[in-house]
């Protein structure tokens, strides 16, 4: 009897489940591996790694990658991670050399790939990513990468602000800041200092009046200070003051003053000095402020907390690695690659000769389009979603109308982008007279294109807010608007951001609608207003791909794709940071 039960216990087959599990795994890995292989080739082309000598690779491996991994392992402080990393880095070297040589001997030579590159992409990059991830969980690594992230993010932000000021009028901004935002901010500050003065509630009217005054004065005021002074007064000083205010609450006046004033002084000095070196002084000023203030705040916090301060050396470690590597390569005369994606590529105009070709006007065009699209689609998308979810009745003619809108929005998400291009051409470019291929036309067209995705994802996010919260709010005697503003939207915001990120990612890569509205494939100077004709990165890349010279296809295009991806990643990172901030209480 007992034996019988025993045999019965072993009779359950898990074959189908196991097969399903591995087929699913294969399906999910398939796409990722193909995309990774493409990206590897693109980056090899963009950075001309095929021409990098093994000595060059080895030098930077030793000066840059090894210290970075070392820092991560020190921070992670975990024997198992160290052992795994050592195994991957050491064993990978042998494996990739053997396998690659074997494949080349049996199958034939592989174009533009060598075993050090295979080793780099298959073993070193993933291992480094893994150790960075592991280190980031611990204090030291968190401090190090937090600082590095603020440096890079601040720099990117400064560049983006600089690009936006190419198009948006800095003088108008100065007036708006001086008469609208600054008084409003002062009112809020005074209101918090003296709550019984009731100044906080007056901030909004003060700001609106100020903005109206600013717009009116723009045409009246004949003389303006130089842009450099405008940037110091109306961009750098508020950022520095914001940084100081962040620190002042917890760490006292001295720390706050140094956090605000030191980066400001450095930035102004850097701006003046940059002019002497032939660098654009305004951009240098902006970058030094947007990177400097967050870095100063972060360092001040870390020093007061006193935990993981050693992590602050990470940027210095990496900078030293690059410097030492460059010295060694220069001194020993190792053949170095000549990357297509270099500073001159992102700062110069397109050209018929591959070496001179640059992406600058297209980058500016894309950034401006995306900035406009982000604002337009967020406002329209969230507005529509709130209306559909919170305000419409379920029955009556309004209910029927709502259902009709719902169905149509779902269908609109599937309409091909060329059709939206046609709409943009007819409606915005022709009928409303926004002009062919201008930033405004492009932004409106792309906003319409992604609007259904934005609306649907925002609706999902709003629907996911528990009804009990709404009930709670209504039960307190809140109106529908108060409930939406105070309870529903804050809770739905992370989800709305996620949807908008995805939609913006689609917008930045669109080409077809831009062709339809008459955007130029190539423009030679950056747009200087939202009404000027512009190109966008995907358009320019597409144009280059048809050029006859092979260097365009195997270098310039690859560099363009890398730039597009980097801008996209930067954008997504910003949105994710915003989302995570809005998730916190």
């Amino acid at each position, binding site marked *: 009897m007992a034996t019988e039960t025993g045999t019965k216990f072993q009779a359950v087959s898990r074959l189908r489940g196991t097969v399903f599990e591995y087929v699913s795994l294969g399906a999910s890995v398939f796409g990722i591996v193909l995309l990774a292989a493409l990206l590897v080739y693109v980056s090899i082309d963009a950075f001309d790694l095929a021409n990098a000598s093994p000595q060059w690779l080895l030098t930077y491996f030793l000066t840059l990658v090894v210290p970075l991994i070392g820092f991560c392992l020190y921070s992670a402080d975990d024997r198992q991670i160290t052992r795994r990393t050592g195994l991957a880095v050491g064993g990978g070297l042998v494996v990739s050399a053997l396998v690659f040589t074997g494949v080349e001997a049996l199958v034939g030579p592989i174009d533009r790939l060598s075993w050090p590159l295979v080793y780099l992409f298959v073993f070193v990059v993933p291992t480094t990513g893994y150790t960075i991830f592991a280190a980031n969980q611990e204090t030291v690594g968190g401090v190090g990468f937090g600082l590095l992230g603020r440096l890079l993010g601040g720099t990117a932000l400064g560049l983006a602000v600089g690009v936006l000021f190419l198009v948006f009028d800095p003088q108008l901004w100065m007036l708006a800041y001086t008469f609208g935002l600054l008084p409003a901010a002062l009112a809020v500050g005074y209101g918090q200092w003296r709550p019984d003065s009731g100044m906080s509630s007056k901030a909004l009217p003060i700001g609106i009046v100020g903005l109206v005054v600013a717009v009116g004065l723009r045409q009246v005021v004949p003389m303006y200070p130089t842009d450099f002074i405008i940037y110091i007064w109306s961009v750098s000083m508020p950022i520095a003051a914001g940084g100081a205010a962040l620190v002042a609450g917890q760490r006292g006046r001295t720390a706050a003053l140094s956090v605000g004033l030191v980066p400001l002084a450095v930035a102004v000095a850097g701006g003046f000095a940059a002019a002497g070196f032939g660098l654009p002084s305004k951009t240098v000023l902006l970058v030094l402020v947007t990177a400097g203030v967050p870095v100063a705040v972060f360092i001040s916090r870390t020093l007061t907390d006193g935990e993981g301060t050693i992590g602050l050396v990470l940027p210095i470690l990496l900078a030293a690695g690059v410097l030492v590597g460059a010295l060694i390569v220069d001194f020993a005369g190792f053949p170095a690659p000549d990357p297509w994606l270099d500073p001159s590529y992102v700062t110069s105009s397109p050209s018929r000769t591959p070496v001179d070709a640059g992406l600058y006007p297209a980058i500016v065009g894309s950034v401006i389009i995306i900035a406009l699209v982000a604002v337009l689609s967020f406002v329209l998308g969230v507005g529509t979603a709130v209306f559909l979810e919170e305000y419409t009745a379920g*029955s009556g003619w309004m209910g029927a109308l709502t259902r009709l809108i719902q169905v149509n929005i779902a269908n609109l998400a599937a309409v091909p982008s060329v059709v939206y291009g046609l709409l943009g051409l007819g409606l915005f470019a022709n009928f409303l007279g926004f002009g062919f291929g201008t930033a405004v036309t492009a932004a409106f067209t792309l906003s319409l294109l992604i609007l259904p995705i934005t609306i649907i994802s925002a609706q999902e996010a709003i629907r996911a807010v528990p009804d009990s919260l709404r009930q*709670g*709010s*209504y039960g307190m005697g809140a109106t529908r608007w108060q409930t939406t503003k105070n*309870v529903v939207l804050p*809770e739905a915001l992370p989800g709305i951001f996620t949807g908008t990120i995805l939609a913006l990612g689609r917008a930045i890569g669109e080409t077809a609608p831009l062709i339809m509205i008459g955007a130029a494939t190539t423009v030679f100077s950056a747009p200087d207003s939202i009404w000027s004709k512009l190109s966008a990165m995907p358009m320019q890349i597409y144009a280059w791909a048809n050029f006859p010279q092979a260097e365009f296809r195997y270098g310039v295009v690859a560099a363009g794709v890398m730039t597009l991806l980097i801008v996209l990643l930067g954008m997504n990172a910003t949105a994710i940071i915003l989302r995570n901030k809005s998730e916190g209480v």
Partner: protein
Amino acid sequence: MATQQSDSLITTEVSSSQTGRSAAPDETVISSTDLDVFYDADKALDDVSIEIPEHKVTAIIGPSGCGKSTFLRCINRMNDQIPACEVDGELHFHGTNVYDPQVDPVALRRKIGMVFQKPNPFPKSIYENVAYGLRVQGKEVTDELVEDALRNAALWDEVKDQLDESGLDLSGGQQQRLCIARAIAPDPEVVLMDEPTSALDPVAASKIEDLIDELVEEYTVIIVTHNMQQAARISDKTAVFLTGGKLVEFDDTQTVFENPAHDRVEDYITGKFG
């Protein structure tokens, strides 16, 4: 035999919980006459007429689906949120029919606070949760008002050092007391409670019961409960709804539990059905 046992159990409960509140003549605060409620074709309340006294705890009991929550939600017009819900008849709050077209349900809810079955604090700080009602009602938010509300909800000592932390970090019982603090902060006249302890453990539930006993000094409390012992312990008046949305009996709690006028009520409170 079994019936008798549970009978006597409840009797002792009642006698041991003499609330000792004044027997002064009761001022009616909420009264309904022939109140019918339909969800589409289903009748949820059938001809309910009741007079609820001020500064007393009124318990509403009855089996599932008998319309007790529906009645509670009629009082502050939370049923307006349900499109299919239709109300017929009159319900007076201080003599005003709340279903009069002139009455703004939002203004009504500012006089009648509500606590729900599941604790539903907002994902904001404890301070902001309590201040929420004051803010949306356009009243001034002061630290004293927030502190008073938390003290009245018997939560102040537990949370006074963590007012900036999220209300969601509290335990279930604390969350429910936070919801009570939130409801009483804007100083309503009536507090409606829809099975406020059914999602809580017995210790947390008894804290809420003690709290209700104190709240009734300042507010009129109407509580829907599934728990008959709870109704017997904390209420002055008890309304018994039975299936079909009929108000079968409404009287002093002691009378209802010791000497009910209807056999079906007796069957229900002695546990023969429900």
